[in-house]
């Protein structure tokens, strides 16, 4: 071999090595003391990290032969891309936390995740939760955290002062708003700097949509109905516009973030704030003195008799197909702990519960914040709660939050916004390869 050819070979090898060296080492392995290390990927929100670490510690205390390492990833779209990239390259942690419902379907669970149908915890799951972590007849996840309510947080002190009753219909709600405005309080708080908070009038209205059209979700998935064409579904967009046009919004709605909105609500500068109940943890931290001034009611619809709450189901812990052997055994044991009454208690201790758990035998502590207590009657009454649309249909468009900001700020009309969202949804349905689109 002459010197030139040897150099060429060395250069080629060196470059090839440099390029392949980017992949991280083998994750999850047994160390010299025979302990099994498993990794657990969660998003970096408090509501995920604190329970995840609490669960890991409690589990390791009982299982000295297992080490659980909690890894974090960004939230939102950025985090979705981390999860998809790691799954598609076979580089996923031994187990990971991710949304249930429509977002899970975008991970192609039948190709990338292990079915957990035979695990003992499956029998303990609430029947509304199981379909949201399933594809066909295969179940892929264990519930992490509690159910979340989507409704209207309201200031009870303001209600008492003006002498108002909790509204059961939209008409009653708007009548309350008129009185609240006359009393010098902003009737509805909106926080469009955190765009996701703008979607609640539409998404949390789903109980009312389903009450009017019980087969909406199935027809929606099959492309037989849509937000612009169904009168019941269009109501959510109409409500957004109606509140803006009536001048019921807080002064800085376009520039506020959700923590500012909670502050306005807690201190009585605003009376209503449509939001998800997981923000109660933030409220407890920022306004500990006012937590019990804040109550919750479901988004009011057309009919008082059909009044009920739209519910977000907990995310799931999933196992990628790349987890095997001793790690897989440890992961399965851990999931059995997560979805057990003992696991629920650990989570309750680590982070204030956002609502009821979806595991049989799990109980909530007695000293719940007022807004969470207000959720419970909806869970105890038959037909008074409906899972949000994203848990009963894989179809959800990514641009809804921008569209609802536009409708809620008077930039776009409700009808126009709903039609635009229908086009956004079509892209997602095609990407998922759903029949009928």
């Amino acid at each position, binding site marked *: 071999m002459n010197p*030139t050819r040897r150099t*060429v070979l060395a250069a080629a090898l060196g470059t090839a090595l440099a390029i392949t060296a980017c992949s991280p080492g083998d994750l999850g392995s047994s160390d010299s003391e025979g302990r099994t290390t498993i990794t657990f990927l969660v998003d970096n929100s408090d509501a995920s990290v604190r329970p995840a670490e609490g669960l890991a510690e409690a589990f390791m205390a009982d299982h000295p032969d297992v080490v659980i390492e909690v890894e974090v990833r960004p939230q939102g779209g950025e985090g979705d891309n981390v999860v*998809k990239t790691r799954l598609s390259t076979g580089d996923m942690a031994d187990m990971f936390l991710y949304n249930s419902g429509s977002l899970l379907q*975008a991970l*192609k669970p039948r190709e990338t995740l292990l079915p957990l149908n035979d695990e003992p915890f499956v029998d303990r799951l609430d029947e509304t939760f199981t379909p949201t972590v399933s594809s066909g007849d295969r179940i892929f996840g264990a519930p992490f955290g509690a159910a979340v309510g989507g409704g209207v947080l309201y200031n009870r002190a303001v209600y008492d002062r003006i002498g108002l009753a909790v509204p059961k219909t939209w008409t009653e709600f708007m009548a309350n708003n008129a009185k609240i405005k006359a009393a010098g309080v902003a009737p509805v708080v909106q926080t469009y700097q955190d765009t996701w908070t703008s979607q609640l009038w539409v998404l949390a209205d789903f109980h009312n949509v389903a009450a009017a059209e019980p087969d909406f979700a199935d027809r929606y998935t099959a492309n037989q109905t849509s937000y612009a064409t169904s009168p019941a579904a269009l109501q959510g967009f109409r409500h957004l516009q109606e509140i803006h046009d009536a001048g019921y919004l807080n002064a800085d709605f*376009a520039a506020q973030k959700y923590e500012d909105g909670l502050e306005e609500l807690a201190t009585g500068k605003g009376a209503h704030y449509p939001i998800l109940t997981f923000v109660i943890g933030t409220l407890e931290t920022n306004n500990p003195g006012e937590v019990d001034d804040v109550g919750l009611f479901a988004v009011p619809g057309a009919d008082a008799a059909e009044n009920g709450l739209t519910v977000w189901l907990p995310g799931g812990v999933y196992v990628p197909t790349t987890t095997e052997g001793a790690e897989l055994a440890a992961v399965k044991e851990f999931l059995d702990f997560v979805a057990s009454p003992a696991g629920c208690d650990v989570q309750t201790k680590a982070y204030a519960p956002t609502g009821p758990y979806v595991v049989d035998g799990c109980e909530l502590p007695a000293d719940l914040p007022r807004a969470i207590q207000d959720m419970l009657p909806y869970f105890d009454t038959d037909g008074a709660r409906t899972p949000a649309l994203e848990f009963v249909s894989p179809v959800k468009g990514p641009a809804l939050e921008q569209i609802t900001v536009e409708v809620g700020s008077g930039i*776009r009309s409700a009808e126009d916004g709903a039609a*635009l969202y229908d086009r956004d949804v079509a892209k997602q349905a095609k990407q998922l*390869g759903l029949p009928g689109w």
Partner: protein
Amino acid sequence: MTRSPYPHWFYLPAAVVYGTLFLVPTFASFYFALTRWTLFDQEFIGVENFVTFFGEPALVQGLTNTLIYAVVTSGLKVVLGLPIAILLTSNIIARGFLRSAVFFPVLVSTIGVGLTFTILMHPSNGLINDALAALGVQGPAWLTDPSYALLSVALVDVWKGVGLATVIYIAGLVSIPREYLEAARVDGAGRWATFRHILLPLSMPATTTVIILSLIGGLRSFDLIWAMTRGGPGFTSDVIASVIYKQYQAGFYGLSTAGNVVLFVLVTAIVLPLSRWLGRKEVEL
């Protein structure tokens, strides 16, 4: 044929790096732009992505906004950069310090600048509107009023980028031979005539550079807009790059790749003829 002074192996490492990091992704992106790509699998769908992308409701607004943004920022950088450069090449005190001061914002992280100005521009608690209120002026909702949002970001972009334009102009101005200015003074030219007939034409190469650089920067601008408004409120300050990024975030990988191909073609189509035209003007002078 002239023989290359280097043996072939000398090119190999650079060629491999160039191939794997630039050539392969470029051609792969032309292919993936024609697929519905989920990262897990891809399906060839022809030009459907381009049809969807051009039917994207935010795109028309994004295109208009991109053009407005590019023209406003590059125009203002020329209009402000030249006078500042003239000021900073004159015999003023602390010239060195003043030159650094105008260049300083160029060195600061774009995201940091964006977040800072987002706080300064808050409609009711922001320093800018507080200052205006002290003067008795009711300041607008800079970033949350749809009719101001894009221009507010453009102004911040100009503040951040005008230093670079100034430095380019300073280099252009100091390279103008003193003789021209002296000859003009002997012929009785006033300050305005000197500026109009000597400085302005002879700094044309600098103007070309400033326009091209800031126009390209404006056309592919993303980071500042994303840090300050995320394209909002709603879609009102979306530019092409943020429309593309949102498709990527939503997991429409094929669609966002198609968007990048469109952006590539668009930037080329605008900048190439413009640079030819401006280049010809330089020669004519």
